[in-house]
């Protein structure tokens, strides 16, 4: 009888906790000196997960360890991060308040995800994108010289035919992920290109220049099959035409 009572009480408590969580309240833990830091505090607003019927809105679906650097130079390491490429926002899980926080983009200069041991982290830098819609976006810099090569990851909601999602609800949209490659010229001009020789050559002006770039790509067997080849292409063009900027 007593055991039954305890089980009933536990189930009741669980229901209450669940109900509270659904309302968006976070469990309040007593703060300790662990909260203290010499850095400017990370600021943001609560992030609410939305149901994604198909595809993903994150760069990585799992929480990954990474770092965040603020615009004043302060750096936070060993954070659990997710990059929402649909909203172009960085999400942090705050272990002390057990909450997902969408960090204020205006305070961040860059962030990165740690890769396996001794590997360089995958870095994302906030840059001002001057084209429509202009604003600050996170870009993954692959090469940073006089010419820069950056990648923007995006998830777009696209219309599809009607289908039932995993909850049995009828849907007509899905989220698809894309990578867009840009060359940033010394005058801070962003030019998008596809990973094809013709698209890359078209970024540059002048018949002779294009001819020379085509020759460089041909001589160096560059077919834009991977990031290394794309980086090399930008480096070679920089050496040939932009080295004295």
């Amino acid at each position, binding site marked *: 009888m007593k055991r039954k009572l305890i089980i009933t009480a536990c189930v009741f408590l669980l229901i209450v906790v669940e109900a509270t969580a659904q309302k968006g309240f976070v469990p309040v833990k007593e703060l300790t000196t662990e909260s203290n830091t010499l850095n400017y*505090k990370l600021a943001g607003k609560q992030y609410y997960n939305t149901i994604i019927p198909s595809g993903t809105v994150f760069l990585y679906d799992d929480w990954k360890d990474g770092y965040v650097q603020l615009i004043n130079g302060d750096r936070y390491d060993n954070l659990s991060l997710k990059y929402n490429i649909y909203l172009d926002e960085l999400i942090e899980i705050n272990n002390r308040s057990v909450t997902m926080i969408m960090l204020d983009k205006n305070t961040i200069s860059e962030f990165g995800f740690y890769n396996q041991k001794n590997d360089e982290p995958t870095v994302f830098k906030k840059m001002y994108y001057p084209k429509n819609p202009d604003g600050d976006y996170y870009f993954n810099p692959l090469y940073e010289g006089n010419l820069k090569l950056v990648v923007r990851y995006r998830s777009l909601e696209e219309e599809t035919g009607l289908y039932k999602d995993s909850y049995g609800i009828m849907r007509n949209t899905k989220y698809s992920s894309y990578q867009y490659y840009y060359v940033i010229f010394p005058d801070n001009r962003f030019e998008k290109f596809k990973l094809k020789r013709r698209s890359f050559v078209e970024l540059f002006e002048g018949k002779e220049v294009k001819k020379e770039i085509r020759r460089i790509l041909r001589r160096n067997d560059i077919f834009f099959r991977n990031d290394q080849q794309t980086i090399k292409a930008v480096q070679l063009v920089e050496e040939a035409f932009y080295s004295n900027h």
Partner: protein
Amino acid sequence: MNKKHFILFLFLVMAFALKAQEQVHLFPDRSSCVSGDTLWFNVVIINQTPDNTGNVIHIQLDDLNNHHIMKVSVVCEGNNAEGYLHVPDSLSTGVYVLKAFTNLQKSNPATIIHQKLVTIYNRFESVINLIDLPKTNTSEFGEIPDISIVSNQESSIMNVKIDLPDNICKDALELIVTARLADPFADKFSSGWVNGTISQETEKYMAVSENTGIIISGRIYSLTDGSPKPGSTVLLSIPDTLPYFDYCIADEQGRFFFYIRNVIGAGNLVLQELTDNQEDTGMELFQNYIETPGINSEEQVLTNEQRSFSSDIVKASYFDKFFYHSQSLSSDTFSIRKDFTYPFYGPPTKSFYPKLFIDLDNFTEISREILRGVQYRVRKEQASIRMLDYGTESIFAGEPFKLFDGIPVFDPGFFNDMGTNKIKRVDAVFYKRFFGDLRFDGVLAIYSNNPTLSWIESIPGVSLIHCNYLQPALRWNFSNKTSRYANIPNFEKVFYRERMEHIQSDNNFSFETSDIKGDILIEVIAVCKGNEIYQSRKIIENRKQRVIDKTGN
């Protein structure tokens, strides 16, 4: 034999450790001054470890018995800094001690503080007969070898030529040249420094590197029994156009700290506890002085020459203030560098400007008519505020975080009588906001038309503290030129001071001597590679001078 070797090894290790530790050297522009004067100084850090990114040096003025008078904090450019001390008007005549240190040095028991002795004459004492003379050994820098200091005087203009040897020109990183009145009393012990160690009583809490910022630390305690309040959340706010906000959780001794960066000058800060019951909270700030052993002294009767000099510069100081009063340095500068575009609560979801609407008498009416999404209710004399939560599309169950002119306010009834004529702007954040580990159920920030801090005094548990942050960077620039006014006597005690980084073998300069009777002292300090510092001095007789008589003519 082995024991001997071990002792020798130990001695070598200790000597190396002492040489390798960070040292701060202080070079004041004068050996004596009159209370109320501004004393300028240069500081140089040598042996700074590469991992130490700190660039802030604290300079404190103590008396010989280690009583603290004042302190300033200056920011280094490279390894040197320049600053000044406004010597308090009321300081009594005596020898005082200038101490320079970095915050990191406080945690190192082996730190040697290079204390400079400076004599201060009280400006209200017309005749000074006795001064406590420090009875201690001073350490001296090595002389600059083969230096030549030659001068010639044409009327009141003194031309000086300093020839430096080639090896000093090659090795010197900087050269500080000063020409000033020689004080027959103070210059007996002004060339060297007194080594001092940091005493145990020095507060070592948060002895970390400071980079263009200072650590402000203190203690939170219960007013009832004085016991510390561990785990309390202490909030700090600095009112400004973009309000500064931070928090700290007190440790088991009730201690808290804040690292305030890029704040220049002197200004107010507000401290309070994040609690429902602020009435039982007391707070005190640690002063961040260092404690060193006092310096023994014995009373000494001044000679006629010393007495006459002190009397002359006290009189000169009076006339200098009389004639050149407007040239005193401003001490009320205050600025915060804004690294971030928005306040700590992020971009407001909505900003309201009540003055654009019809006149409304109180906050209840303002919330009803203007502040969409903000519910202000007063029931049975109890006020409450609730805000929309755009994240969950509902209303927050708790009170929002409320700010008035950037300072947190916990009683919603505080806003009751505020009408449209008082409020300039209202920022509302309709999201659950986080700042570090603090969580706010929305933010309501109200900015008044005429921000003042007088209202803080009426709120128990809130401390309003005037704080000296980093000293504004000013350069010693009121001399190195000819007389300011031809028909007004010149009462300067320091005639020329220059810090040079491009060092030549021959250095020529000239300056106008003052109308105060006395010899001139030329001092050359060379900071060289390999952390070597050399110093040379030469006393020059001032032949052409106007002598101030008892009426000051």
